[in-house]
């Protein structure tokens, strides 16, 4: 498995004709856009920005990066890139687990699906070959059952199954692909694109293959160096010692709650008070933790496997109670029942839904219920059993669930009150209230895939875990800070390394790994430039798709209603001046990439 030949084995799959052809990615694209996220965006651009995302003409790209499946630390990632049915922007999402590695070991760098199958179909990828199979018997089934059946059918060992659930089949605009039961391509509605294509699953069978590089000693050395950084006790990634490793992502709930950045009751409040403790990572570990599973080539093991100990969902075993769903389905819905949060996350994993959007659409529906805008019973704050029932109805598009399956922005508009959707460009916000973490607010507004915390994780600076430290309540300087994070992550997502690698590594380490793996010397500056190019490519696509001046904004609630609790009390998010700073740093004109910038970055 030669890492320097990345990009040569991309399968273009015509689902209508049931044919496929291996075509190398253009060398220029691989050089400029690296792989995974960046390369995927280039393919999506090539398909045209005007395509209807819920039509067979949309292209669905599953792509590895040059490091996916290698021995590089935290490299068990691949990307799904398409035009989003939720936002109309280009979107990319990333899964951990073992699927990316198995795809590489099976002899593929990526799978690009075009057209739509006539009948439910799944593909099998094995030994450099791809075959088409009837999925009628698993169509309509949940992901857990689909994974079980297909794994058993294809040998059980060394098998990864990436599947959509009923939500994707019913074209929910926030349907997700989920692999190995619980690692999702969340956000953006990639699962609905699979539903349109009648593509139920991708089954990959492959045993381990070792990487080949031109300088094995340098490869060993760079991996040792990065492993030492990840293990360093000063870093939160330190196995079994750092906060991220011990408690998982949910380690921050108590902190964001304290500083006034944990949205509550559809962001009507900025703190869940003393009730936050019940949904925190500390409580998960102290009460329901059963294991610490990990992904390919990752020593951190941030995933938390749990078993619910009491209540209606007693006995449920699942992973993983992350920070985002603990917020979206917890404080955001005024729900402090940890067992129900585990149940709702597991429903997302089984039905194929994005839990961030689910929590937001439910909280908007709850607010509408409270204000008397829902005909019928509606849903009360904190009604955990009602949330579970509504999630099933949503996935099957039954009753009000049909409207809610459209996502928070469309659902709130359908209820006649678009202002209660906490969304940007049609995608709901994640778990950092922009009034308490202002750089994150700027990040939501300028994210190229709709509101997102992962395009530029400024939280690392605002929470003080990286050397560049920033006051979460200060808006000045956040434009430049965010650009740095966005560009670094755009490169990391294109490699494809776990986002959390950036808690221990930086552009220097990314450059070293890239150089040794691909045999092409690059500097840290070139890494940042490549990230900037990917970010601008996405923005260029979105500009062509109709996003321009005024698209980079936040819900009025964050701009006009002051925080009511925690350290941010009295604050709003000063988006306007931050945007001015940011556009100046980017060289954009009101959110549009000018021709000169495109030429400078050699886009497309």
């Amino acid at each position: 498995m030669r890492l320097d030949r990345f990009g040569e084995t991309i399968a273009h799959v015509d689902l209508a004709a049931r044919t496929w052809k291996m075509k190398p990615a253009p060398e220029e694209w691989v050089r400029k856009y690296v792989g995974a996220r960046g390369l995927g965006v280039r393919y999506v651009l090539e398909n045209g920005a005007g395509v209807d995302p819920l039509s067979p003409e949309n292209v669905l790209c599953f792509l590895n990066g040059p490091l996916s499946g290698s021995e590089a630390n935290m490299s068990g990632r691949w990307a799904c890139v398409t035009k989003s049915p939720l936002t109309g922007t280009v979107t990319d999402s990333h899964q951990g687990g073992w699927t990316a590695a198995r795809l590489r070991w099976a002899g593929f760098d990526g799978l690009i699906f075009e057209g739509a199958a006539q009948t439910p179909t799944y593909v099998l990828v094995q030994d450099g070959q791809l075959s088409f199979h009837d999925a009628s018997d698993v169509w309509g089934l949940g992901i857990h059952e689909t994974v079980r059946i297909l794994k058993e059918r294809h040998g059980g060992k060394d098998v990864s199954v990436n599947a959509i659930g009923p939500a994707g089949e019913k074209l929910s605009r926030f349907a997700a692909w989920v692999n190995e039961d619980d690692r999702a391509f969340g956000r953006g509605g990639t699962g609905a694109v699979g539903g349109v294509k009648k593509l139920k699953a991708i089954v990959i069978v492959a045993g381990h293959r070792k990487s080949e590089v031109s300088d094995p000693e340098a490869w060993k050395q760079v991996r040792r160096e990065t492993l030492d950084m990840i293990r360093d006790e000063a870093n939160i990634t330190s196995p079994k010692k750092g906060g991220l490793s011990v408690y998982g992502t949910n380690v921050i709930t108590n902190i964001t709650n304290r500083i006034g950045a944990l949205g509550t009751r559809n962001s009507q409040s900025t703190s869940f008070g003393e009730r936050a403790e019940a949904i925190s990572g500390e409580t998960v570990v102290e009460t329901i933790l059963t294991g610490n599973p990990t992904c390919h080539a990752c020593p951190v093991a941030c995933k938390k496997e749990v078993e619910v100990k009491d209540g209606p969902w007693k006995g449920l075993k699942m992973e993983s109670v992350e920070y985002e769903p603990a917020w979206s389905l917890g404080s955001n819905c005024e729900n402090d029942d940890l067992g129900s949060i585990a149940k709702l996350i597991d429903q997302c994993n089984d039905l194929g839904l994005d839990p961030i959007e689910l929590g937001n659409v439910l909280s908007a529906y709850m607010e509408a219920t409270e204000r008397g805008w829902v005909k019928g019973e509606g849903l009360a704050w904190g009604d955990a059993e009602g949330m579970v029932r509504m999630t099933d109805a949503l996935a099957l598009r039954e009753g009000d669930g049909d409207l809610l399956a459209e996502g928070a922005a469309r659902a709130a508009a359908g209820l006649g009150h678009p202002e209660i959707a906490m969304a940007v460009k049609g995608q709901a916000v994640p778990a950092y209230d922009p009034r308490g973490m202002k750089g994150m607010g700027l990040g939501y507004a300028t994210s190229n895939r709709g509101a997102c915390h992962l395009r530029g994780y400024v939280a690392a600076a605002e929470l003080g875990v990286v050397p560049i430290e920033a006051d979460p309540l200060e808006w000045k300087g956040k434009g430049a800070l965010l650009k740095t994070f966005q560009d670094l992550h755009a490169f990391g997502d294109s490699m494809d390394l776990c986002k959390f690698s950036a808690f221990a590594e930086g552009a220097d380490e990314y450059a070293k790994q890239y150089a040794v793996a691909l045999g092409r010397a690059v500097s840290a500056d070139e890494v940042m430039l490549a990230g900037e190019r990917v970010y601008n490519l996405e923005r260029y696509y979105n500009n062509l798709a109709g996003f321009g001046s005024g698209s980079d904004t936040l819900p009025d609630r964050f701009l006009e209603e002051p925080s009511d609790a925690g350290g941010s009390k009295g604050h709003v998010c000063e988006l306007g001046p931050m945007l001015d700073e940011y556009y100046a740093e980017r060289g954009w004109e009101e959110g549009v990439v000018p021709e000169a910038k495109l030429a400078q970055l050699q886009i497309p």
Partner: protein
Amino acid sequence: MPLHVKVYATLRPVVGGRSVELPLEEGATVRDLVDCMVARWPELEVMMIEDGEVSRRVHVFVDGRSARHLPDGAETVLLEGQEIAVSPAVAGG
């Protein structure tokens, strides 16, 4: 004044609970709080003190604001009635 302090994340197994009572005197500062905790649980020194100063690996939150971002920093005087919490610097997803 006995000060009630909430503790988070990897500090909890060390102090053995979700909060602690610290016997601080009137006029005690954030730095005094950190010193008091290190004196009581010496294994916290590696996390809480760096080059003789309060480490950037730890936050002392005073009414929800990290002392690092308050005008007086580690010299911020703690007052009765304030909500105090101590946490290692952490981030998630």
